[in-house]
């Protein structure tokens, strides 16, 4: 650890430039102002000057402040004692508890060797039928939840956190409002899962640079747990804030923006995080679910667009429900009716097809056309489907959900009308309700 008494030459936005020698790219530094110290990271070196990205923000930093270089890049604590704890974007506890004393690990580590990857074939249960049944989440999958501000995406995330069969949940909050933060904390505590949750929270009022560290810290910790054989689920909200922070920093670094002000490396930056999702053969795994709010509900906006190219499908959260049409899990084919029950694939397709038919019937009504008997059947089915399946509060295992689907089909249709294969109908069609 070297202390350098130096004059800070330049302060712009969250960036400070100062004279320093023998510092490495990515090295961590602390700016010591009277009464407080602010961490920062070296992001550019040139001759005898170094440029620091100041995590705590540059407000109140004086050109005469001392800067101490720590000789190592940004690190995060790792260990069992992190479970149940809450940290801010610099890795400092904000739950009133003590500083953990375990080992420190670097963040933003190297990429997983693609040759070591395996084809994922295990499902991660969330007990939310719209996920488990219609777009199964597969271990090592990375999926965004595309939504717009105002939708209950944090409620959905919290529910997944509470119900998912993961060993460890890491929640990374970026630009989280205080209310949302409290909501997560309270939900996890009240449902008794807090002892397997680790939270890294950047609140909306915190300095923007800390926001950039949240995914890296969350994923670095998750990666270690996965290597230790744990099934880790990482929940990130909201990646749009992360991308906006990237934009802010890169503009103050005078980088040339590419599309709507976002830096040219937005894709690589997002990919570096999302690609941490992995299933390690014989050991643990990381599955990643990340909220991306779409500015203006526009999926072609650079953030959701770049995200869509990286992730393995997407969930659309619209009007409080997971939309069965736009949502897609690219990996579900690896598990549907392979590790799940054999009727899964057919039920999944049939239910959605009928619901899509119901939507057409609704359009017919909206356009003032005459409604046939068949339309009425579909309409009744559709509203039941929305109530008993799509509602985010529905909490049941996939087996129960499948049974429920059969029961719903029997309630509204003749077996033939569903187009389901005869052998499945013979085995699963509820006998008591048969019309």
């Amino acid at each position, binding site marked *: 650890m070297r202390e350098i008494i130096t004059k800070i030459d330049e302060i712009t936005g969250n960036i400070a430039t100062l004279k320093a*020698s*023998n*510092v*490495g*790219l*990515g*090295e961590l530094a602390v700016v010591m102002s009277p009464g407080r110290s602010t961490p920062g990271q070296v*992001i*550019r*070196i*040139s*001759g*005898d000057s170094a440029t620091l990205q100041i995590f705590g923000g540059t407000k109140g930093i004086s050109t005469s402040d001392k800067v101490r270089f720590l000789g190592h*890049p940004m690190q995060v604590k790792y260990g069992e004692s992190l479970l149940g704890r809450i940290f801010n974007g610099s890795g400092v506890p904000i739950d009133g508890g003590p500083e953990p004393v375990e080992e420190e690990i670097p963040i933003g*580590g*190297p*990429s*997983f*060797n*693609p*040759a*070591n*990857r*395996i*084809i*994922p074939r295990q499902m991660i249960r969330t007990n939310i039928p719209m996920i488990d049944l219609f777009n199964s989440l597969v271990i*090592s999958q990375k999926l965004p939840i595309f939504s717009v501000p105002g939708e209950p995406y944090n409620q959905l995330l919290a529910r997944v956190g509470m119900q998912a069969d993961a060993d460890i949940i890491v929640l990374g909050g970026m630009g989280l409002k205080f209310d949302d933060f409290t909501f997560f904390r309270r939900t996890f505590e009240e449902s008794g899962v807090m002892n397997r949750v680790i939270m890294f929270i950047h609140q909306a009022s915190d300095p923007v640079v800390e926001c950039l560290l949240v995914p890296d810290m969350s994923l670095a910790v998750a990666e270690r747990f996965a*290597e230790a054989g744990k099934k880790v689920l990482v929940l990130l909200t909201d990646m749009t804030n992360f991308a906006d922070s990237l934009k802010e920093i890169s503009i103050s670094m005078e*980088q*040339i*923006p*590419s*599309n709507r002000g976002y*830096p*040219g*490396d937005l*894709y*690589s930056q997002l*990919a*570096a995080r999302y*690609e*941490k999702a992995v299933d*390690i053969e014989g050991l643990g795994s990381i599955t990643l679910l990340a909220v991306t709010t779409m500015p203006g509900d526009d*999926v*072609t*906006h*650079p953030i959701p*667009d*770049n995200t*869509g*190219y*990286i992730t*393995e*499908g997407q969930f659309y959260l619209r009007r409080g429900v997971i939309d069965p049409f736009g949502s*897609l899990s690219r*990996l579900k084919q690896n598990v549907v009716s392979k590790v799940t029950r054999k009727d899964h694939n057919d039920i999944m397709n049939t239910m959605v097809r009928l619901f899509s038919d119901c939507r057409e019937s609704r359009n017919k009504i909206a356009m003032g056309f005459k409604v046939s008997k068949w339309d009425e059947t579909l309409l009744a089915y559709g509203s039941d489907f929305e109530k008993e399946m799509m509602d985010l509060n529905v909490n049941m295992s996939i087996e129960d959900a499948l049974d429920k689907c059969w029961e719903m089909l029997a309630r509204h249709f003749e077996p033939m009308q569903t187009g389901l294969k005869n052998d499945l109908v013979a085995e699963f069609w509820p006998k008591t309700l048969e019309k």
Partner: protein
Amino acid sequence: MPVHGKVVAAYGNMVTASFDESVRQNEVAYILASDGSKLKSEVIRVRGNNCNVQVFEDTKGIKIGDTVEFTGDLLVVELGPGLLQQIYDGLQNPLPKLSKATGLFLKRGIYFEALDRSLKWDFTPLAKQGDEICAGDILGWVPEGKFTHQIFVPFNFIGKAKIVKMADAGSYTVDNVIAEVENEAGKRILLNMVQQWPIKIPLKNYEERLLPTEPLVTGCRIIDSFCPVAKGGTACIPGPFGSGKTVLQQLISRYADVDIIIVAACGERAGEVVETLKEFPHLADPYSEGRTLIERTVIICNTSSMPVAAREASIYTAITIGEYYRQMGLHVLLLADSTSRWAQALREMSGRLEEIPGEEAFPAYLQSRIAEFYERACCVRLKSGKIGSVSVIGTVSPAGGNFEEPVTQGTLAVVGAFHGLTWARSNARRFPAIDPLISWSKYLDQMAESLNKRDPEWVNLIKKTQKIMFEGNEVKKRMDVVGEEGTSAADFVLMLKAEFLDAVYLQQNAFDNVDAYNTLERQIYTFGKVFKILQKDIAIKDKDEGRQTFFRLTSLFKNWNSSEWQSDKFRKLENEVNAFIGSEK
């Protein structure tokens, strides 16, 4: 004796280094970081006594004053027997070997030889003592899987030389000496089976470049029949996310009728490469009995989270390996997924160099780089008289699915075929989601002679059908406005015909074992029947009846499509088809 320099500035993966003597543009340099690792990098700009190098690795911990070692060599790939079946990163570092050395994660600064030095090859000499040789001459051959892997005098061999000593037939490793030659200056040079070639310079050791006129059959009907690709040609597949680019690429990589496939996963998901990686060793090669697909495949894998500068290099690495196999008179297909990520790597570097940006901040030279790359695809007559080719099919990931963006436009300007995927088609579950109304191929006319050998009317049929497609679409658009009532019976039938063509010929079920892949022979045969139906006068009493007729036809053809070529079921269904065509109705 390598030239040394010092780091004077660093930002992201760009490092500025000072040097005393001289450096070459694009030469390889190593930065000796203080933690002892040696980071590979490439000189990309020289200014006075400073040069900018792009580092192919994570640059954490680089300090001012760190030593930079300039090698004097351009960025090269290693060429020789044993490239097939390999999985390399963008700089030809073998990933499985890396995994053995560094564990689960990639570690920076660790490089292995691309070719296995312990493996022995059965060498048969073709040249003999006293022969006069020059660059690219054949010294002998070794069997590599089903291929005769020719061993060449290095392509960068300068001048002429005489063979003083030639190795006998036998078993050798790649770096065993197989020939000793004496050049014109009287200097003795030892040659082995491995050679190097700079990746950014096209390998042009051939007699003549030919116009690509032979079809490259992908097995995908809409491509082969309507927008065909030639052996030695280029095509681009742009499409928004979720439109099925990757599935299409994977299908082509399985079924294309070429000798060697090079899959360049450039900045895309690692998960997709894994499928190729894990499944190819188990999938049968459709063109040689008893062999698996991996035996004709080289995988270059620089996925999205791997260093960006190496991503830029990866497609050059891939095409250089392609050019090497082309020299043996083989047909090679390079699948680059995706060239947008490569262009983005150029953009990142250009931004760091503070160059004046062009559209969407891409560098002004984007278009010329794209052209340079696609122009390396070619069909050539070699000195041996054999014909070899490298074809390139590149995917493009346009931002927001908008084809107006610079990478798509830059690519369209230089490729011979365009297969545009759209959300409109993928959302309607019409796969492959290639939109026949916007896609085109210049090869249809260029290959007319070859295609018409198979069916003298072929090109004409296709053109007539394209007309029906456009007209049918016009009717459909009109019908959306005026409704079915306002559409004449003739127009309605035209629309139904276009829809029928789409459903039974343009669409193809990738998950059906038979339908997933059609030989050109089968395509021509099936299309003949489809065309007869398109030409047939189909009188309808009312629109419902017309619809029913085409429902029936569509279902009949779909079943026909999924029945094994010339099987009993195939013939039975064909009879039904013929019965309809012959009927009076």
